[in-house]
């Protein structure tokens, strides 16, 4: 079943690009939305036994072992939510029919890649799928081919090239010392001979690559440029899920299943997490561009996930994964709101905006829900994941880190309140008297996502039982 989540979008892209399909321009969008819904449904409600049987026993995949853990299911859900929203928003924010078509195809490709990333069980295949996602993202960022877009994309390519180099060297070192790239065998080798210098180097190199991909401080330089210069719908995809899958998910999976926790690694994770939280939040405070502010806030929120992972406890990892899922929900939604604002007003400069809630009530209200969920205000879902992370930190004795984490959540509130004040709340800025709400295709995803934030927050026992606690139990 896991293989079909990778193959169906891949095959679909090939079919859509056949000459006979040229007249069906809308079909890819329809397919993408239906596929996302189906994937979300599978992740939430399917029985565990479903995932054992490959429906496409293709020779192509004979050397590739897929494994669906509870963590994978959460990621399937997050990918479906974020990518599905991105598809719709891209469609409605782009004017040019050909660009629309290209973007939808590239996003489908990225979906296939991300589903691959979260399902594989060996390092080399993991690397291949990460590259699939990255290449799709490079093109998506540079879509408009203007100066900013090319610069953002170029930065991403350069940083990714370094990350690639580090990951490939690490894989080579593992191959050299253990003769395999499978997770299980590397984990076994690391456990039996923990002192091997070569393997230690390999672990360090791979982690370095992953940190770059995830945009953690101090490897975050490319991220705000890439998010801000991308077309509105693409930044939804990038911020909501792409860097989280290629960077953060990979980190969580490798640390829990392959590299294992050691005191040094935990210190490193806690330090990078705390640094990302604080630097991201402080940088976000000073921004005037909506998308740049949201990008820095992404860095900050990634810090919470890394710091949760750094506790090395099951509850901490569960909290981290929960926050990853929540982040996919509220950040996708906030970028959707930013897309609506940019689409209707033509600017992202917060100082030129103000009082938009009066003219764009739906965008205004949903963005409040999104930012409150991000700041960890109950009863929204973001509160519960932050709470679990903080409880894990406090109970495992990292009290100062816990204090940093909660103090930074007040900073989160500070910059999001300033965004609200400058864009939505307050008196209507001059020149926007005839402003209208964005079209349904942009507003609807935001409404659905805000509703998910509320419902998941109130029905948090269901989310915990169904998705999150099995991860803690199974690890």
């Amino acid at each position, binding site marked *: 079943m896991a293989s079909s989540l990778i193959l169906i979008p891949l095959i679909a892209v090939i079919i859509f690009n056949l000459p006979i399909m040229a007249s069906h321009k809308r079909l890819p969008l329809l397919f993408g939305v239906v596929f996302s819904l189906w994937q979300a449904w599978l992740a939430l409600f399917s029985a565990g036994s479903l995932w054992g049987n490959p429906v496409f026993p293709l020779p192509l995949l004979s050397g590739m072992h897929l494994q669906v853990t509870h963590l994978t299911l959460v990621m399937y859900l997050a990918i479906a939510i974020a990518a599905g929203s991105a598809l719709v928003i891209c469609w409605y924010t782009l004017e040019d029919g050909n660009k629309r078509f290209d973007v939808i195809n590239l996003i489908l490709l990225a979906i296939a890649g991300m589903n691959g990333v979260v399902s594989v069980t060996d390092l080399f295949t993991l690397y291949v799928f990460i590259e699939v996602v990255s290449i799709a993202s490079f093109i998506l960022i540079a879509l408009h081919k203007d100066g900013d877009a090319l610069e953002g994309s170029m930065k991403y390519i350069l940083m990714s090239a370094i990350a690639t180099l580090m990951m490939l060297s690490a894989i080579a070192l593992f191959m050299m010392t253990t003769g395999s790239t499978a997770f299980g065998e590397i984990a076994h080798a690391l456990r039996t001979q923990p002192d091997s210098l070569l393997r230690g180097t390999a672990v360090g190199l791979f982690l370095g690559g992953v940190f770059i991909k995830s945009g953690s401080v101090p490897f975050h330089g490319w991220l705000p440029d890439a998010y801000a210069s991308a077309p509105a719908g693409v930044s939804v995809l990038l911020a909501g899920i792409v860097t989280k899958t290629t960077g953060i998910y990979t980190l969580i999976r490798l640390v829990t299943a392959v590299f294992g926790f050691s005191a040094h690694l935990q210190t490193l994770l806690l330090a990078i997490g705390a640094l990302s939280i604080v630097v991201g939040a402080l940088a976000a405070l000073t921004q005037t561009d909506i998308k740049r502010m949201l990008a820095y806030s992404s860095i900050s929120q990634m810090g919470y996930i890394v710091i949760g992972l750094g506790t090395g406890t099951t*509850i901490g990892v569960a909290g981290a994964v929960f926050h990853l899922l929540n982040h996919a929900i509220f950040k996708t939604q906030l970028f959707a709101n930013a897309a609506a604002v940019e689409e209707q007003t033509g600017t992202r400069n917060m100082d030129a905006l103000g*009082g938009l809630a009066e003219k764009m009530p739906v965008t205004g209200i949903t963005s409040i829900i999104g930012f*409150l969920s991000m*700041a960890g*205000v*109950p*009863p929204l879902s973001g*509160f519960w994941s932050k*709470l*679990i992370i*903080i*409880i894990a930190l*406090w*109970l495992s004795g990292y009290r100062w880190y*816990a*204090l940093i984490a*909660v*103090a930074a*959540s*007040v900073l989160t*509130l*500070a910059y999001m*309140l*300033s965004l609200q*004040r400058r864009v939505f*709340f*307050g*008196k209507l800025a001059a020149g926007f008297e005839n402003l209208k709400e964005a079209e349904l295709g942009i507003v609807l995803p935001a409404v659905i996502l805000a509703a998910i934030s509320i419902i998941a927050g109130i029905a*948090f*026992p269901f989310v*915990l*039982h169904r998705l999150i*606690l099995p991860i803690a139990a199974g690890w």
Partner: protein
Amino acid sequence: MNTQSLLLAAVFFPIIGSCVVPLAGWISPRLRNGFSLACVLSSLCSAVCLLPSVFAGDITSVSYSLPLGFNFILTADCLSVFMAITASLIGSIIVFYSWGYINHYKNQHEYYFLVTLFLGSMMGIVFSGNLIFLYVFWEVTALASWRLIGFFREKSYVIRADKAFMITMFGAVMMLMGFITLFQQTGSFDLANIKNALGTTPAANLAVLLILMGILSKSATLPFHTWLPDAGVAPAPVTALLHAAVLVKIGVYVYARLFIATMPIALPWHTIIPVVAGASALISAGAALIETDLKRIIAYSTISQIGFIFLGLSTGSEIGIAGGLMYILMHGIAKGGLFLCAGIVEQNMHEKNITKLGGLFRTMPITAIAFLLCSLSVMGIPPLGGFFSKHMVISGAIAGGHPVIAFVFLVGAFLTILYLLRVFTMVFLGDPQTPTAEEGSPTMVISVSVLAMLSVAGGLYINYISTPIEYIVKQMVR
């Protein structure tokens, strides 16, 4: 209805009802106004109906076990029912007064939604038997008050709203850390389990410190008090009232619930807290003396009076605690009356600088008398309600062995008399400075009269209040 459904109704009627309020508003504004009042009144009725059973000594509780110790528990005992009645009574009057006040402004759906939600989550705080859900409801009230303070959308108001939200949020997350420390110490977030696990062992000092930061920030006590005068200036007086009469009481209530009814605290706290409260009461009374903005004066006076409540609760003597609880009720009513009178003055005169007002007694007699009665109650002049509570708090301080602090509070009480008389003279007596002025709308005048009469009745029929309060205190300290 059995007691459990009453308990659920008291909390969830207004919370769920608040989401229906905007829908009702689309049908007709009248329906919306009535529905909103009905939601708050249903809380009041449910709490009143719970009275017989809790005073018979039964404790009603509803609990659902949820993962990670985040159990959803509502508990009704004497203290919570008393607090629920106080809050929903004042809340009902606020909503009624709003009918006359808010109908001149935009975004009324939002207003009624927020007020109802606020009062509903206040019920949630009062009845919550689990620390995590206490925090959840606590933050929902912060959320509602953020939006209410910034209700008029002027930039300066919105900035003040953001300030209030951030200060209370900071306190709240610190409190959350305190809760987690307690969880570490006792292994549970449930108040009943915490009480059993601790027995007579004092709670960890770190936990007490962190939780106090939350309580002081919500109750606008030194050093986290700065948001309250700002919140009092910016928005509608209704909102200001909501904060002065209801919101700040949340912190005081949680103090009583946690540190008196649930867990013992180490000895030094019994000196530290009265000292902080005393400093807060004196400094803000001084600020109230020099302010010229009507609503800022009343806001500073609130901070000062909250100090008295903390003093009463922290003395550790039964009479002091009883005085503190009675103070919550009397101050809520009298301060509510003052704010609503200020609202009438501001709406009719478009002026809240007391040096530019004067002689309003002739044109607004009912408002003036209501203002005077409520001021007398806050000052603690016999036979009004405020006298008895102030008397009990100060004798509690002496009984608890803090004669110096009791003296400081006497000075505070003297300052209260000074600044309230100053306000009354400057606004209502003397020569009229502006020609046109008329009495407020009927609903507004009725509301202030009711509050003034309640202040008087509270003093005259003090027996009917003091007996149950003594019973509550017995149940708390047991």
